Structure formats: C-alpha cells, structure tokens
C-alpha cells in the first residue's frame, strides 16, 4: 500500500530535479503538485492503516519510517509554501524516496505489542518523529548553505548562486528548524523516560525489551547524543558565534547520526526498541 505514495514521491523527485536544472515555472508548480498528491496519498495510506489497526501506525521501525516520511513531506511543504523557495526540494525528495522504499518493500505488521498502548507512548514516538523531520530539514538547509557559501567564497557565482536564497535566510531557516526539532526531541526523550520508568515497574515488567530500556541500549544512547549535539549547536550559535557555516556542518552531522539511529540501529542493534 505504501508503494503508491512512493511512486508519487519519485515522480515529484524527477520534477524537482528538472525544475532545479531548468527553473521552469510550470515544472516547479508540477513538482509541488506531485508532492502534494504524494502526501495526500500517503495521508490516505496512514489513515487506512490507522482504521484497520485502531491506532496510528507508529509502533515498530517500519511504520515509524513511513510516518516520518509523511511528517517530513508535510514540514517541507509548509516551508516551501511559507518561504516560496523550491530549491530545497531537490535535496529533501531523495531522502523521502529512499526512506519510503523501506515501508513500500516490507509489509507492515499491524498488531502492536500490548505494552505499547496509552497516550504517553503516542506522544513519545510522534514527538521524536517530528523532531527528526525538523532535523532533516535543518540538514538539507545546512547543506545548501555550505554549497552557496563555497560559491561566494570562491568567487565563482554559478549554479547555486542563481537558485538559492541568501545565506542570511538559509541560516535563519536552519536555526528555526533546529529550535523546533530540539523542543520536540526534548519532549520525546522525557516522555519516553517517564513511560519506560512506569512500564518497568508496572504492566511491562515481564517484557525483556522494556527491562533493557536504559542508556546502555544503543538506540537510546545515540538519541541522547543527538540531544547533546543539537543543544550545543543552539548554544554555540547564540553564545560563541557558531552560526552560519559551523551551524550548517553541525546540522549535517546531527542528522547523519539521527539517520543512523533511525534505520540501521533500529533494525539491527537495539534490544529495547525492536517491537
């Protein structure tokens, strides 16, 4: 079922690349339309899964990735519509297509473990997914910042110079995305910790996975590392002048770790989060 949005995301990717190269207004509008269509189709898929299972499909790595892609597409569309900037799409769409391939190829498992019920778990996962979507945007904005910075610095005003907004705008967009992401990361981690503490003495005491929920688990450990990286980035940008290019590099490093945590660690290494 996730294949339909995947196809539409792929079509949108082609249109965004074409638009980026040719800067044709009609192609640009087509790209946005395709992405809106993909997001709507994706909304429908998630809605169907929710109705079938009776809850939003966020438990387990595969449905969570699908929901993450959906959130990222929504966040990007919001950014595009508020800033009227389409240039970033060419960097976001490959990520959407790559990640959406996973749920499209793996059939999703609907039954949610009994421990994963209740509002706290929902807040935990959705906050983190939203935080990761913000960090993905920040990373892409950071990459474009560095590309534009290098062009201006090298006095070769070419491809990106003609297509990207100013450094100042990119920097501000990056900071905003990091702040939003950091707030949701903090909420997600705190709520997760509270939930785990409740479960370990209560309903989930018999589940070995719940008992392994501590900083020693790679997934939890890496998430906390991310929190420190992004906290440092926010602090550094405000106090020691690490804005602009350094903030851009930090956003890229931060999101690389997020992605590492999100895909390989979720599937192969964690012993507490493999629901």
């Amino acid at each position, binding site marked *: 079922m996730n294949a339909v949005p995947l196809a539409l995301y792929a079509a949108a990717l082609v249109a965004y690349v074409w638009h980026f190269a040719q*800067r*044709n*207004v*009609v192609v640009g509008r087509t790209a946005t339309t395709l992405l809106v269509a993909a997001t709507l189709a994706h909304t429908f898929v998630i809605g169907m899964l929710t109705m079938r299972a009776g809850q939003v499909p966020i438990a387990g790595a595969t449905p969570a990735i699908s929901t993450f892609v959906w959130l990222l597409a929504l966040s990007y569309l919001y950014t595009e519509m508020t800033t009227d900037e389409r240039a970033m799409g060419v960097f976001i769409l490959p990520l959407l297509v790559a990640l959406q391939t996973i749920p499209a190829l793996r059939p999703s498992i609907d039954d949610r473990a009994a421990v994963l019920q209740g509002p706290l778990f929902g807040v935990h996962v959705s906050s983190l997914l939203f935080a990761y979507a913000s960090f993905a945007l920040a990373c892409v904005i950071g990459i474009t910042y560095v590309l*534009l910075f290098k062009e*201006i*610095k090298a*006095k070769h*005003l*070419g491809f990106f*110079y*003609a297509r990207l*907004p*100013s*450094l*100042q*705008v990119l920097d501000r967009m990056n900071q905003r995305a990091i702040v939003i992401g950091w707030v949701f990361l903090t909420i997600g981690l705190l709520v997760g910790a509270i939930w785990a503490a409740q479960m370990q003495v209560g309903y989930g005491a018999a589940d070995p996975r719940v008992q392994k929920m501590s900083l020693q688990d790679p997934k939890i450990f890496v998430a906390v590392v991310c929190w420190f990286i992004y906290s440092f980035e926010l602090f550094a940008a405000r106090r*020691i*002048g*690490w*804005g*602009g*290019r*350094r903030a851009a590099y930090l956003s890229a490093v931060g999101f690389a770790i997020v992605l590492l945590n999100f895909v390989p660690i979720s599937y192969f290494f964690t012993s507490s989060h493999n629901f």
Partner: protein
Amino acid sequence: MHLLLVGVSHRTAPVELRERVDFQARGLQGALRALAERGSAHEAVVVSTCNRAELYVACEDTEPTRQDLVRFLSDYNDLPPSDVAPHVYDVADLDAARHLFRVAAGLDSLVVGEPQILGQVKEAHTVATEVRTAGPVLNRLFHASFAVGKRVRTETGLGSGAVSVSYAAVALARKIFGDLSGRNVVVIGAGEMGKLTAIHMKSQDVRHITIVSRTMAHAARTAEAIGGASAAPWTDLDAVLAASDIIITATGAANPILTKAHIEAVMRPRRNRPLFIIDIAMPRDVEAAAGEIEEVFLYNIDDLQATVRENLARRASEVSRAEHIVNEEVDKFGAWFRSRGAIPTVVALRERFEAIRRAELERLDFKLSTLPPEARARVDEITHLIIEKLLLTPTEQLKSLTDAETVSTYTEALTRLFALYEDERRKVEPFSRDRKGGGRQPR
C-alpha cells in the same frame, strides 16, 4: 487590416541620429496626435527610448502607410528625409509582432535582457490608450508583448545576473545578507569612486553609511554630499569596521591599508558574523590573504568584473530559450490575427441577412398592419431570432479559422453564395500571411 512597424534603433542608426529621432522630448502624446492627424493609420503606438524610436500602426495598405511613416519620422523631428531614410527599417504583420515581442523580452536591447524596456513598452501603450490611438489590434498586440516579457523573465535566465560592477556588488551583498536594511556600511576613502558606490548602497536602504578618510574634512564633505551618512576620523577605523557588515575601500593608497591580521582582529568581536569587503581601489587596499579568513568575502574590482562577464555569457546562453517563447507567442498572436481576416465577411453576411429580413417585413407590411401592435412586435422578434440562430454556427466557424488560405476560400464562397457586396462593389481583401512591407529588415 495590416500591422506595420517603422523605426530606427541602435542596430540601424548611429547615436547622433537616434538622439534627434526622439519622440519622448516633446511628449509621446503630441507625437501620437500628430501621427493620428496624418490619417495614414487606424491605430498607432510609439515606442521611444534612448536606443530606439519605433512606430507601430494598424493600417489598410502597407506601402503608402510605410512611406508616410518614414516621412513622419523626419518631419516630426525636423530632419531632412535623406538623413533618416537610410537608417529606417520596416516590417509588417507577424514579423512586426515578432519584433515587438523580441523588444519587450529584452532580446533586441543593447544589453540583452535588461529589464527597463518592458516598462517602457508598457508606458508607450498606456500613453497610446490615453490619447485613444491604440485600438483592438494594437491592444491585443501589446498585451501579448507584456506576456512575452513576463514569461521570458520568469522562465529563462535572460535577465538574471548583474551586468554592471556596482549592481554585481549589491547583488552579492544581497546574496550574503538578504535584506540590506539592517546593515551598516563603511566607505574608506573620500574620493569620487567611494562616493558613487556609497550612493549606490544608500539606494538599497542600508541602515547607516560611515565615511572614513585620512583627512577628516574630506570625509565630512563626502558624507554631506551623500546625505544621511556620517564621517569618522581615521583613528576610529577599527571601531567602525567592527560595527560594519559591508566594507568598501576606495583610497588612493599605494600599499594595502587593511591587512589580514587587521581583519582578523576585527572579526573576533564580530563573533564570525559574515563580513563583505568590496575593494574597488587600484592598486588594491586590502591584502588578498584577508579573503582566506572564514566568514570574510573579499571581492576586488577584477572579481566583480569577472562575475559581470560570466553573467553576460550566461545571458547569451539563454537567448535561444527566450526566442522559443517569442515564437510560441507569435504563433498564438498569429492565430488571432489571421482569424480577423474573416471579420468583414461576417459583418457583410449579417448585414445581408438583416437587409432581407427588413425588406420582407416591409413587403408584408400591409398584411401585418391588421395585427395588434404586440403581435407585430412578436413577428419582428421571431424573425430576428431566426436569423440569429441561422448565423450563429457560420459566424463561430469563420471566427475560429486560423489559416489564411482557408479564410480566403471561405470568404470567396460566401461572397458568391450570398451575393455579398453586390451593392457596394467592394472587394473582400482577406489577410494574406505572405504580404510584407518592402524595405530594410532589422537583423
């Protein structure tokens, strides 16, 4: 109805002549009225800029109108015809449309892609609308040309990239800082170059401009000349630099006045906020190594000129895409223009039907006179409706024809079948796409 363009431009006439063939000087309105009084054209728009003077008209016969317009170019500007005539070009119908579209797109400009021309073409049309010399044909033509200008600007890179050094500097500053309204600018050197650049920056609504010079009196004088700028003594240079985002250096100093170490010291309290240094002095005022500092963008006059050259080259590479848009729009306009060839036939056909109706009603008048007035009105209404219904489809069919040959065949057939123009003995003259004005063609 034909379209005709007669004019001189930078492509055909030297600047000495262009200066004298000027319709702006005494006002476009006067020129349009004078042109209308001559009676050789039904509609007229005059496009007059420093690089061109072009008369766009809609007329019945191209050749006499062409001769009259060439005369008008010299008469109106009090020039001997022999001076003007060799430099005049003229084109007709769709070639005239293509020419205007290329002008509006900036393809025919001295600096290809310059944006002002579209505004000037719009202005020319507005004035012609005010004095009512623009009619349905030229209105359609000019509106189409605005659409071409807009499409070329948004769909191609023809107008992108600064093509003068001062604009290149401002464009760079905008790419680094975004909005310049909160930015401080310092100009080092109180000479003419520094002053000009400062004035240019001021037009960008920067927050504050400070002039620093070795001689405080010079700085104060320059600051006053710019207006809204302040002067600072040389001893305050470091403090001023630390508070600035854009530094423009334009002194006559033989050696660099700002070294790498100097800029590094300035950057520390700035906490790595970007600094844009524009060195327009020759020899250079800023050590080249200063450009290695992170967050410092150093551009000298050669760098700016190089970006201007790159932009010009990029514009040249966009020309074919712009031409493609022009072709598309010429085709669109051509379809409409050719369909106008059928209009006289449509009118004649309607007149013929209406005349028959009236004649029949008159003939039957004695029979109808016995009817009450409402019934007579009803008869009039019904006969009218029948004619309307009968003519509806043929009218639509004729108006949708876009091919000159078909138009000609149809009008010929209709003229014979319905004996149109029998009373007036006027011949239908459908538009032919092959008809062109003679004379020189612009490149």
